[in-house]
């Protein structure tokens, strides 16, 4: 899905986690256990809980992936410590499920990316799970690595709301903190525990004699089984110890009569029988989590590591092959534990040295993360700092800031003052995660090194290119800090200074600074300057290879161009972004380019092409979208539905968009609530539109600003729809006054796109007022301005009230011809563009599972917050559900909803 070639691709998911481990050759089958798991009626939760070395993973792999089960599909996820981050965890869960059904959980992913509450993410996933066609099993192995209380809570929620055809299976070394007692009492829990997993005497006999070819006597097998208590790991070690011995019975007698911890005794037996250099090899390589021949050589200082590994593999020396070509291995961890314990007991000072050798090997092999991990493990923090400094630029470029942050946080504070480039990397890591608290101190420390007078000492620097860019980079960060603080002038000042300080060839700094200046100018309404700056920024960032950032800037630039009335230019901006992305694999931001094209094509009424691009964005998946993507996708589709006449669907989508609204530092010049207010008007829901007016606190006599222009236009529309006469006076007059002022402001600010819309609304207002001449004049202006760029929907969306005016205009000149064109376009019956792939939601008249849950509780006398608590969802989520329920049932309040639901038999 993503390119691993150093371009701006998102880091790929590790495929290996999504597959059950390969079966080891010599393991016996355990039909009595697999049969138990193969029972047809699996409960919601199956738990395989036992300490390490009991064969849990093997059993799960055998029972669920190796055997062909009729009509059952299995998704697999091997968990590790990094999955304690809820975003990572649920992304992997969705990825595992998508191997079975490709679109499962797409909406959950977009909610996750928009930092929505986890309950809503899981609720959405549960909806999709409910749509799965057949019996589905989700296996999560090594669940004991999960320590996050938040994750346990959401897992509890998941387990308790699983649809009947979905079954969860957990493998764990400890009982997870899930409601096991409750499930057990309901008969909804299947457990396989250590007592079940222990080898029986028969199974042990089969293992030793058949699988390992040992030919032991029955009482010897019994003695072994008693001593090891059927613990598989111990049996394996025992089998290894006995291979090639003349007197297995003697060995077993000695073993059975000894009190030592089983693994320790057996491992020692195995180790003792190895030649000295092989023993050293085992001990020294035990510090590695995974290893290959050359790495072993580097660590042990020997040669022939590859041959040694192959020998160990053939001798079943607790090696696990990690790939098909048998290049990479790891030790069975129990064996590795014993090895490590011996190493540290015998030669503790050697351990650091071994880690440093591993670090050096990984650095030469071009694997900074492993090199850094081993440098840290070897307590060589200075070397780790050097490696991190050298890797930082690449990590930021490939959007792996979270990892870079983790590394930097692990370094001792004392290292940073002397290392300005390391410090600036820390500044970057902090700012990306929004923690600006320590940034000022770091920046001041860096600035001291840049002061030519002050320094007797020299700083410690490894990345000299970044060092040369420090003066400009510091100003860029100061500009960003000013932006966060809302100080627009300071933002412009610092960013302009950065532009002066940066070398012309320093494309990254040139691009970053230009974008910041552009953003500041956009916020103040200086669109022409902003547009120029963003264009510069795009060129520089392209040269710097920061493709995702280019696409982010493209969104801003196109937004500005559309406001300026330059649809054609906006199209070209988005298309250029797409073309650039195409050369770099699927890059974050590609989906946004498609959605942008959708919006422009929609305005030009090319609905088929618009839908194609929207589908294109959907197919790329969530990884390809920047933070604004989830809400923009929904607003775009809502526009298409509205063009097709399906206002209910449009409102549904806009409500969803509200939930994921995120402008990612761009000025919020088109808030979704205002878009929704217009759709509510079009649907005839004046009451709801008026509620928006009250909430947004805007009035017709406000001072005008670019920031609130869209909202004021929306306000004018609502005013026009309000009845005249009575206590509110004549709102239509207020509307006309407001619109006239808005038009003047838009013309002065060169916002030609806004002006066209204002003119249309003005025409409608005059018409409502009865001033036909003024109405026709306004409309003619609008048409004349709209014609060069091909605006259609601005007119077509008003066709009910606008068509008589349009027809009146069609007699004269350019405006007249264009009016004809618009009328023709709007009169063509809208062709159903079909449902995009993602829209697997139930039809508008059906309530979803979650909504039914809420509806059931609406019947009770629980309050809203109590219902939310009962369902383990946030209050906001519950409100969204009730809004949707009311809409789908066509009611206005709870009492009506309950009555109507009862009437419908829900």
């Amino acid at each position, binding site marked *: 899905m993503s390119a691993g070639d150093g371009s701006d691709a998102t880091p790929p998911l590790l495929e290996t986690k999504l597959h059950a481990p390969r079966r080891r050759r010599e393991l016996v089958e355990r039909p009595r256990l697999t049969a138990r798991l193969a029972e047809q009626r699996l409960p919601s939760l199956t738990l395989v809980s036992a300490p390490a070395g009991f064969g849990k993973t093997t059993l799960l792999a055998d029972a669920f992936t190796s055997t062909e089960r009729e009509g059952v599909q299995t998704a697999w996820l091997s968990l590790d410590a990094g999955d304690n981050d809820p975003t990572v965890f649920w992304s992997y869960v969705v990825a595992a499920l998508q191997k079975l059904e490709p679109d499962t959980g797409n909406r959950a992913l977009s909610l996750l990316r928009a930092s929505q509450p986890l309950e809503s993410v899981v609720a959405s996933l549960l909806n999709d799970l409910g749509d799965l066609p057949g019996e589905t099993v989700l296996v999560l192995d090594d669940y004991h690595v999960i320590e996050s209380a938040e994750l346990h809570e959401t897992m509890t929620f998941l387990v308790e709301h699983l649809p009947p055809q979905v079954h969860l299976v957990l493998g764990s070394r400890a009982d997870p903190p899930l409601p096991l007692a409750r499930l057990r009492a309901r008969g909804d829990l299947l457990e396989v525990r250590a007592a079940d997993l222990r080898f029986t005497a028969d199974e042990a006999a089969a293992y030793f004699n058949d699988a390992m070819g040992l030919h032991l006597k029955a009482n010897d097998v019994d003695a072994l089984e008693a001593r090891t208590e059927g613990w598989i790991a111990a049996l394996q070690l025992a089998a290894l110890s006995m291979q090639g011995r003349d007197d297995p019975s003697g060995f077993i007698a000695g073993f059975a009569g000894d009190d030592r*911890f089983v*693994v*320790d005794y057996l491992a020692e037996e195995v180790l003792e029988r190895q030649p000295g250099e092989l023993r050293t090899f085992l001990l020294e390589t035990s510090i590695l989590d995974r290893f290959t021949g050359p790495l072993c050589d580097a660590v042990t200082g020997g040669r022939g590591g590859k041959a040694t590994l192959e020998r160990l593999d053939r001798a079943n020396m607790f090696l696990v092959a990690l790939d098909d070509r048998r290049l990479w291995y790891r030790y069975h961890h129990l064996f590795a534990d014993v090895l490590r314990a011996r190493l540290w007991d015998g030669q503790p000072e050697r351990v650091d040295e071994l880690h440093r050798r591993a670090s050096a090997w990984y650095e030469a092999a071009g694997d900074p993360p492993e090199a850094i991990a081993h440098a840290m493990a070897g307590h060589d923090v200075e070397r780790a700092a050097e490696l991190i400094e050298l890797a930082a630029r690449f990590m930021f470029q490939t959007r792996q800031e979270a990892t870079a942050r983790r590394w930097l946080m692990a370094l001792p504070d004392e290292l940073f003052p002397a290392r300005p480039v390391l410090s600036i990397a820390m500044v970057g890591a902090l700012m990306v995660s929004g923690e600006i608290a320590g940034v000022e101190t770091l920046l001041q420390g860096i600035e001291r090194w840049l002061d030519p007078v002050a320094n007797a000492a020299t700083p410690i620097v490894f990345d000299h290119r970044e060092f040369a860019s420090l003066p400009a980079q510091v100003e860029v960060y100061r500009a960003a800090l000013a932006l966060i603080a809302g100080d627009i002038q300071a933002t412009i000042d610092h960013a302009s200074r950065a532009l002066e300080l940066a070398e012309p060839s320093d494309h990254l700094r040139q691009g970053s600074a230009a974008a*910041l200046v552009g953003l500041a100018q956009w916020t103040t309404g200086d669109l022409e300057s902003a547009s120029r700056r963003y264009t510069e920024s795009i060129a520089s960032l392209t040269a710097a290879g920061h493709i995702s950032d280019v696409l*982010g*800037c493209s969104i801003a630039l196109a937004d500005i161009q559309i406001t300026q009335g330059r649809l054609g230019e906006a199209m070209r901006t988005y298309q250029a972004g797409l073309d650039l992305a195409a050369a770099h694999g699927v890059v974050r931001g590609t989906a946004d380019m498609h959605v942008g094209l959708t919006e422009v094509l929609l305005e030009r009424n090319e609905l088929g092409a618009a839908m194609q691009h929207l589908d294109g964005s959907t197919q790329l998946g969530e990884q390809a979208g920047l933070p604004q993507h989830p809400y923009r996708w929904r607003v775009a589709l809502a526009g298409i539905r509205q063009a097709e006449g399906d206002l209910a669907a449009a409102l549904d989508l806009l409500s969803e968009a509200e939930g994921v609204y995120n402008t990612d530092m761009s000025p919020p010049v088109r808030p979704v609530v205002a878009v929704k207010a217009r759709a509510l008007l079009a649907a005839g829901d004046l009451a709801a539109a008026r509620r928006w007016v009250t909430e947004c606190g805007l009035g017709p006599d406000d001072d005008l600003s670019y920031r609130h222009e869209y909202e004021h236009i929306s306000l004018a529309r609502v005013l026009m729809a309000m009845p005249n006469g009575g206590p509110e006076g004549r709102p239509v007059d207020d509307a006309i006054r407001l619109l006239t002022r808005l038009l003047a402001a838009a013309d002065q600010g060169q916002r030609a796109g806004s002006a066209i819309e204002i003119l249309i609304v003005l025409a409608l207002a005059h018409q409502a007022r009865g001033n036909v001449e003024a109405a026709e004049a306004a409309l003619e202006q609008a048409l004349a301005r709209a014609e060069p760029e091909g605006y259609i929907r601005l007119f077509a969306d008003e066709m009910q009230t606008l068509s008589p005016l349009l027809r009146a205009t069609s007699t004269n000149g350019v405006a007249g011809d264009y009016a004809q064109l618009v009328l023709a376009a709007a009169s063509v019956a809208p062709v159903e563009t079909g449902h995009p792939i993602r829209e697997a939601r139930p039809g508008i008249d059906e309530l979803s599972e979650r909504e039914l849950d809420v509806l059931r509780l609406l019947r009770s006398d629980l309050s809203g917050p109590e219902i939310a608590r009962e369902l383990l969802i946030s209050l906001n989520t519950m409100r969204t559900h009730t809004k949707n329920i009311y809409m789908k049932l066509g009611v206005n309040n709870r009492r009506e909803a309950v009555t109507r639901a009862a009437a419908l038999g829900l």
Partner: protein
Amino acid sequence: MTTHQVSSYGPSVTTENPTPNTAPEPPVADHDPGSQYEIRVAGHLAPRWSAWFDGLTVAAGHDGTTVIRGPVADQAALHGLIQKLRDMGITLIALTQIPGEPT
């Protein structure tokens, strides 16, 4: 670093990734006296395991059990120790906090 990296792009990573095979730190010498623990496990462990258990003393008894004993920095360290025992498949028998003793 551009404007579009300034905002929070997603939840920041807050978990520490344990590096399980770092050489253990020696036990801290000066402790408040209440944080000595004694853990009894099944089976005999040789004294050489002391290094693996952060320097705590490891003493096998005549009843087929072993006592691991010594200062533990805090609850998190105690749970880490118990998890190490768990992951090695060692059976826990008893856990006791020992009142302060002269070191």
